[in-house]
């Protein structure tokens, strides 16, 4: 098999961190290569090196046997390496066709004027490859998330037939927002594509990687720790390589899981959010962790955002300590005792222009001010306490938030709600995009919060996470509760049971 893309001893260092440590990797023609690893294992650095966003410190990259270094994602694209990013790169105000050919309108130009008809029909061809049935002249803002993802893939596929060189398509977590049906479709497409291109498939869903790949690399702490043909691999085996040890109960701090709870804190009665959620009722006690499982669109995100005051309920009742509360605005939610940790940390979780201390006390203004004046002493003492307790790595309380790592930023967000004294913490993907060590710190912290009597609503990054951390799990499907599982320490429900209720 001819090797199309190869990395030789690639090392990448950031100040203080070795993100990649002599990585060797090759991709053959017409091969599907799976790349797995935990968040923080170096996957995204690897992707950014391939895309030309980062430069290699040591080692080299070869494309079709020639040493290559791409200058930008566009440069990589023009050479035949197309990427579908986890964070979408679709411009919502442009049409589907315009997005697919963004930056490459040349072939549709007639005397400087874009021939929309030929562009749309060319787009139609690409859309057919991903079996997406939408008008190329449709604005992308009108499509749902999954459809936009398909447009993104169609954009990558459009290289096919337009280049003489080999084509490598890199799919970075393409399934994280797709439903099973769409995932199956995607795998079908990958099967068809194999005839024309090579594919790098990055995911943290081991079953999927196993299903679709020919060969798998496992990344851990910036190094390739394992390489195997899919035929010889198993989920548990891959997982062990990925986390570097046997999966044990220690990881999710199950020994610290509570079995007795305080008084009921939160009661939700027949909560309905039009088009998102129907008649959800649930009770939650102090110190209890309620996990929510479900695919995208199942209603669990809507439920979480509703508790955060960021989405209006259409009907139903929410009670705190037996008293009904209104959650029309985020400030009402905060005043009622909710603390919302959003999944979009960068845009909703932190204020990047403010300092660590300012972020920590953002929601607890009154406690740290007198007559509107900030009590800096009190603030500093409190913040230093939390920095120490949560082991937040920051030079000082005055450090700008943007210079902290993702994990430390997330700890600041969590401390923000503890400082306020929230009764109910709503954690929407609290470990998204943070490294392994920080993840464990966050798990530890969640347990501590439960010990303090905070009721916790958890939307996990993975199913395992939800199972490992929760006392009780609510499974949602199409906006309704489809099942409920108790998950006491030592008697956790099986992933497959949950999945069968999710889809």
């Amino acid at each position: 098999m001819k090797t199309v893309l190869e990395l030789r001893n690639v090392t990448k260092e950031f100040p203080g961190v070795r993100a990649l440590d002599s990585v060797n990797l090759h991709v053959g023609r017409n091969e599907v290569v799976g790349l797995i690893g935990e968040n923080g294992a170096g996957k995204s650095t690897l992707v950014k090196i391939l895309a030309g966003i980062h430069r290699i410190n040591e080692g080299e990259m070869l494309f079709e046997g020639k040493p290559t270094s791409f200058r930008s994602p566009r440069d990589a694209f023009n050479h035949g390496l197309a990427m579908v990013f986890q964070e979408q790169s679709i411009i919502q105000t442009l049409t589907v066709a315009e997005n697919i050919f963004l930056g490459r309108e040349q072939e549709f130009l007639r005397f400087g004027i874009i021939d929309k008809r030929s562009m749309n029909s060319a787009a139609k061809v690409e859309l057919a490859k991903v079996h997406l049935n939408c008008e190329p002249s449709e604005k992308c803002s009108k499509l749902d998330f999954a459809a936009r993802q398909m447009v993104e893939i169609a954009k990558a596929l459009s290289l096919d037939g337009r280049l003489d060189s080999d084509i490598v398509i890199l799919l970075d977590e393409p399934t994280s927002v797709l439903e099973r049906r769409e995932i199956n479709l995607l795998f079908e497409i990958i099967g068809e594509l194999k005839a024309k291109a090579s594919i790098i498939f990055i995911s943290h869903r081991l079953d999927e990687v196993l299903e679709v790949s020919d060969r798998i690399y496992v990344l851990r702490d910036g190094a390739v720790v394992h390489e195997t043909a899919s035929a010889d691999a198993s989920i548990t085996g891959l997982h062990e390589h990925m986390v570097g040890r046997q999966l044990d109960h220690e990881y999710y701090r199950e020994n610290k899981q509570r079995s007795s709870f305080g008084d009921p804190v939160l009661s939700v009665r027949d909560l309905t959010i039009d088009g998102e959620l129907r008649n959800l009722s649930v009770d939650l006690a102090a110190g209890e962790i309620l996990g929510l499982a479900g695919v995208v669109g199942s209603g669990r995100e809507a439920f979480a955002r509703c508790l955060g005051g960021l989405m209006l309920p259409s009907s139903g009742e929410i009670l705190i300590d037996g008293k009904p509360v209104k959650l029309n605005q985020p400030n009402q939610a905060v005043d009622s005792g909710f603390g919302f940790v959003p999944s979009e940390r960068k845009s909703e979780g932190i204020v990047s222009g403010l300092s660590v201390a300012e972020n920590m006390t953002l929601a607890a203004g009154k406690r740290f001010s007198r007559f509107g004046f900030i009590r800096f002493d009190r603030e500093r003492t409190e913040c230093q306490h939390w920095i120490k307790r949560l082991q937040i790595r920051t030079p000082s309380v005055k450090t700008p938030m943007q210079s902290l790592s993702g994990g430390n930023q997330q700890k600041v967000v969590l401390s923000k709600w503890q400082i306020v004294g929230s009764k109910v913490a709503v954690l929407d993907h609290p470990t998204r995009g943070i490294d392994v060590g920080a993840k464990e710190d966050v798990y530890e912290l969640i347990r501590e919060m439960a010990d303090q009597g905070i009721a916790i609503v958890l939307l996990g990054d993975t199913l395992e996470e939800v199972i490992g951390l929760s006392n009780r799990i609510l499974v949602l499907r199409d906006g309704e509760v489809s099942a409920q599982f108790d998950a006491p320490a030592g008697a956790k429900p099986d992933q497959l049971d949950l999945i069968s209720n999710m889809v």
Partner: protein
Amino acid sequence: MTEKHKQFIRNLVPIFTLLILVFGIAAYEPGFLRPRNLMTVTADTMTLFLMASGATLVIMLGSIDLSIQAIASMTSCIVAAMLPMFGGTALLFALAAGAAAGILSGLVVNYLRIPSFVATLAIGGIMTSVAFWASNERSIYISDEDKLVWLNWATGTTAGIDHEVVVGLAVLAVLSVILSLTRFGRLVRAVGSQERAVVASGINVNGVKFFAFVISGFMAGLAGLVMAARLGSGSPTLASEFLLPAIACIIVGGTAITGGVGSIWKTFVGALIIAVVRIGMTFVGVTVFAQQIVFGLVLVLAVAMTIDRTKVSVVK
């Protein structure tokens, strides 16, 4: 050099810019550095600074206030029209009118959800009508007695220091305290930096915006009073041609027009830069035909120097 030191120096660039301009002018006309002249230049700058001071908060939010010129003219009319009848109460009334204009802007932006650019432009139009109504479409003179009794705080001189400068420094101090020591000030920066996160933290963002517009209106009103005192009259066009220079001095000082980054002392320095360039041209003897051209070029160069690009990712 550590990041901290670099940041410290970046913060001082507007002052360096000012000093270069001052000494550049002094090199040609040493008389420029006479203490009395420097005092006069500073005093002449204060009305501009007062107008820009409150608007700085609005710009730090990422919004803009285009009504300040009309508000200043309006309060000059109100104070000039009311002083003979009401005495000192007229001052309070004028300031209240300025704040009320800010309240209107705040309400329109928050509840009608109209972008501040248009909202404040429109409110400015309304304030101009109020000014015409209050002044009966005339310039109104303020008698010397009234001026001495009620407006000396703005125009007099004590121990060689012009009162305008005192008022300006007082506003500088008060707004600096508000911006750096109060929760409101912190929230102004927060909203300008990342509004979504502030909302998600349960902060009443509308309230923050509202107060910023009120402060802006109040300060524009105060600027109108000081102008009326200095010129001895109120007129619906008293503050004409002040709007763009006022916003220019906010930006020249280094406050980002996109919000999140800025401070009052930067606006103070920005106002001085603008004034020094303008008056400096008269001093150095730049022909009046070239003055506008030189002014425009220096403005662009000054901003190119003073803007701290490390804090603004995309320059729009």
